[in-house]
């Protein structure tokens, strides 16, 4: 069944309906490397407990949490013969956080376990929340289609560690536990953090002015491009999405620290000879460790470009098989998905499919998708990891998309579930 939201992954796709109205859909993709939510949370009676020890015990040396959330509020597509035009709005959250296991170990369990060792505690973050207003255009022939989309972006809030400056290591000497902190760290934020010193900071997770923010100084531009080729029973599709960035100027704060600091405790030699001890130098050293330089320069957060490449073969009128390659490339992370799919149509009112995906190094992703059309109303849902949806805590990939469309002027059925 042709699902209008396929246009989101390939702007050359406009389906065979003259009018497509997406009344709201949501797409969430969470990839957890290392510890899972289930490792962190447990319920005891009415009490929700974050178990730090259990979380740490299940961590890899390097861990990450990748969260992509897209809420499409309205998505209208019109076919004018060979020309397709679309207009859409979405609110998107793209968050990636990577941290070494040694970091929570040090913070929550102490550094005594690392005596004599240098541990890396630097972590990376890329958080980008924005409104997207998109205008798409496609040209469609019988054998091929091409399309593009230009997207006006308005940043709600953002945070980003400079990929070239996100290192911090701690060495605990085995002598008397002298601490050496080597840091070269820069955190760029907008509407996310106000940091004065180690005892005075404010973390802003939810946007202060709400999520529907279509103006302001945090602006950007992005493009999507796509093409489709139909060779009888064989169909090819290729697209690249999110080529662009947002420049954050509003409430932008860039916090940075750099240097190597050795803390040995106060030197009380002077006290032994009857003089006053200069604790200030020791305090100065501590102060330097936490001293952060703040500037209000603008910074740019790149969207994570995505690429789709797929092929489908219509085995019969009711059954289609396909293969798909998906890549997503951010400053800190890249993700690759290779998927195989089978799709069954049930008349003109329903379709269902099964997918098997290899997501990075995870081989246990079995997905389902389905769509139902009742008159002009189309409902669809899909996931690449059924286990993650049914029992979110147990999966390290949690992925789903669901939505509601109105479609008019049905010309020709196409399959859902690319």
């Amino acid at each position, binding site marked *: 069944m042709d699902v209008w939201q396929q246009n989101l992954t390939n702007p050359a796709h406009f389906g065979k309906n003259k009018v497509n109205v997406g009344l709201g859909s949501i797409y969430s993709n969470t990839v957890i490397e290392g510890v899972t939510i289930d490792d962190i949370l447990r319920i005891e009676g009415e009490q929700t407990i974050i178990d*730090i020890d259990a979380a740490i015990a299940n961590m890899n040396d390097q861990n990450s949490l990748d969260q992509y959330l897209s809420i499409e509020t309205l998505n209208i597509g019109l076919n004018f013969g060979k020309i397709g035009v679309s207009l859409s709005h979405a609110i998107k959250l793209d968050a990636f956080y990577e941290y070494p296991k040694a970091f929570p170990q040090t913070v929550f369990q102490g550094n005594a376990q690392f005596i004599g060792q240098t541990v890396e505690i630097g972590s990376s973050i890329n958080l980008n929340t924005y409104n997207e207003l998109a205008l798409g255009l496609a040209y469609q022939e019988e054998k091929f289609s091409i399309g593009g989309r230009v997207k006006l972006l308005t940043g709600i809030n953002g945070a980003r*560690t400079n990929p070239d400056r996100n290192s911090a290591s701690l060495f605990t000497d085995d002598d008397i536990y002298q601490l050496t902190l080597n840091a070269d760290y820069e955190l760029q934020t907008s509407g996310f953090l106000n940091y004065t010193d180690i005892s005075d900071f404010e*973390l802003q*997770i939810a946007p202060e002015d709400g999520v529907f923010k279509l103006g302001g100084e945090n602006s950007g531009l992005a493009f999507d491009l796509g093409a489709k080729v139909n060779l009888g029973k064989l169909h090819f599709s290729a697209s690249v999405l999110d080529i662009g960035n947002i420049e954050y100027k509003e409430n932008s704060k860039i916090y940075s620290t750099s240097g190597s600091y050795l803390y040995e405790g106060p030197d009380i030699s002077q006290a032994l000879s009857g003089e006053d001890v200069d604790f200030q130098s020791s305090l100065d050293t501590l102060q330097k460790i936490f001293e952060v330089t703040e500037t209000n320069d603008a910074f740019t957060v790149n969207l994570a470009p995505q690429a789709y490449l797929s092929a489908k073969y219509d085995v019969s009128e009711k059954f289609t098989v396909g293969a798909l390659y998906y890549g997503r490339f951010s400053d800190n992370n890249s993700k690759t998905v290779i998927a195989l799919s089978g799709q069954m149509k049930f008349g003109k009112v329903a379709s269902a499919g099964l997918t098997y995906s290899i997501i990075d190094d995870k081989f246990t992703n079995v997905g389902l998708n389905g769509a139902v059309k009742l008159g002009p109303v189309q409902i669809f849902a899909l996931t690449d990891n059924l286990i993650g949806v049914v029992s979110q805590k147990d999966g390290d990939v949690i992925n789903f998309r669901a939505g509601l469309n109105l479609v008019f002027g049905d010309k020709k059925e196409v399959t859902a579930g690319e």
Partner: protein
Amino acid sequence: MKFYILPFLAVILLAVSCQKISNLDDIEIVSSDAEFAVPLLSAEFTLQKLLDNFGELAVITIDPDGTIRLTYDGEILSQGADVITSAINDVLPLGFPVPVTENELLLPFSIPAEYEFDFISLKAGSLVYAFTLAPEDEIDLVLTFPNFLIDGEPIEYTVSAVGGQPFYGNTLAPTDLAGAVIDPEADGSLRVLYTATNADGSNFEFGSGLRNLAFTIQDNLEFDYLEGYLGGEVFDNDTPGEIVIDFFGEFTRGDVWFQEPTITMTIDNSFGMPVSSQAEYFEVVTVDGEVLPLRSDELGPDLELDFNYPGLDEVGESKQTTYVFNKDNSNIDSILGSSPAFIRYDVNALPNPDQDTDLRGFISCESEYSVNLKADLPIYGRASNFGAQDTFDLNFNDYKDVKSVEFKIVTENQLPLDIGMQIYFVKNDNSIVDSLFADVTTVISSADVDGEGNATNSSKEETFAPIDAERFQKIATEANKVFVSTAFSTTGNGTIPVKVLADQKVEVRMGLKVVRE
């Protein structure tokens, strides 16, 4: 650290917020105890630095070989010429009239009896005379002081007087005696002569009309120089001397033996006559209150030491005499090796100890002698369980979430000293709650020494002092003070004499592991 934790907190919240949790306040974060390791303090010192603090009264000097030397200066005992001149003044008829009733008057001037002055020069003084005469008389009077010479000539007054005036003399214009010389008769007496004649030259009988003839040496007399035999009366100091050795006051127990202590007595003397010291007492008082007298077979029981002195041709010069009490000529090593608190002494001077009256001497108005004592304690010796202690306030109110701690003490020591330590956690009433170690523990180990007592290496020691949760909570809730007790011993538990050099360092570093809830 908090700066780096911010992204982590953010994402934890982000992740949690994806769950079906209605109220984040309901979330409880649990984790096992965290153990942190942090450096506490470090210190580097030399014994010289410590001594700068301990012994405020000591001068610390370093020998060319690096040996540290503590030098304590004593109070200076001194005696000036007034010890003799005041005695003379006491016997001279100063300030009151001496009646002249005979033509020749002999005044005894050998008091004190043992003094024999060959001559005396005066720096100041004045002489007046006066008499009365009956109105009907007229005389010529000559009053002579043959033993008072001004410019080599005797003082003589010649007066022609006609009776009728209230009195006669120079009371309104006294004779200035500055620069005058008193040259006593051979028997030490002073002669005063007078003659009175009538207008016709005949002798005027004293007592007829001439009355009240008298002279006065006014009491502003000051001696400039005295020569002769100046007696054998002891010059007694009014104030005894003391050397406070405050270094030992910092320590509370144990013994220290200095291998080569000395006390140097230096006398500067410008009295021009033989003088020897005569000690009423010279003793060491230990920190325990024990009194140990200084003995010297060489100087005898009164510690008599002859002072060098200037000869008659060396007036104005000062001669110095130095005597060093050491372990070879006295018992100084045993009395100073017993933790002295102070040395007290009263050293007088005995002039002309041989009482040889043929030996003529002098004093000038500037003559004096001074006795200066200096105790010298080279840090070369033995010490055993030599202890110091101190008390500090303690407040563990901010450590309620601490379950246990472990101190780590690392020391590197170039000194040939073992230093043991115990720390007691005590209540306000000084009752002991707990102690850091089970017993006094050597936290700083002595460096090895060679046959001459010189340290040959640096000794490293690591000491761990754990305090478990139960003990720590008891200390945290009950103790208000820490009582630190230290004990020093030289290599071999105080059996081997060692040298402590200025550049020998001790490094002390302390770290802490703390388990927090």
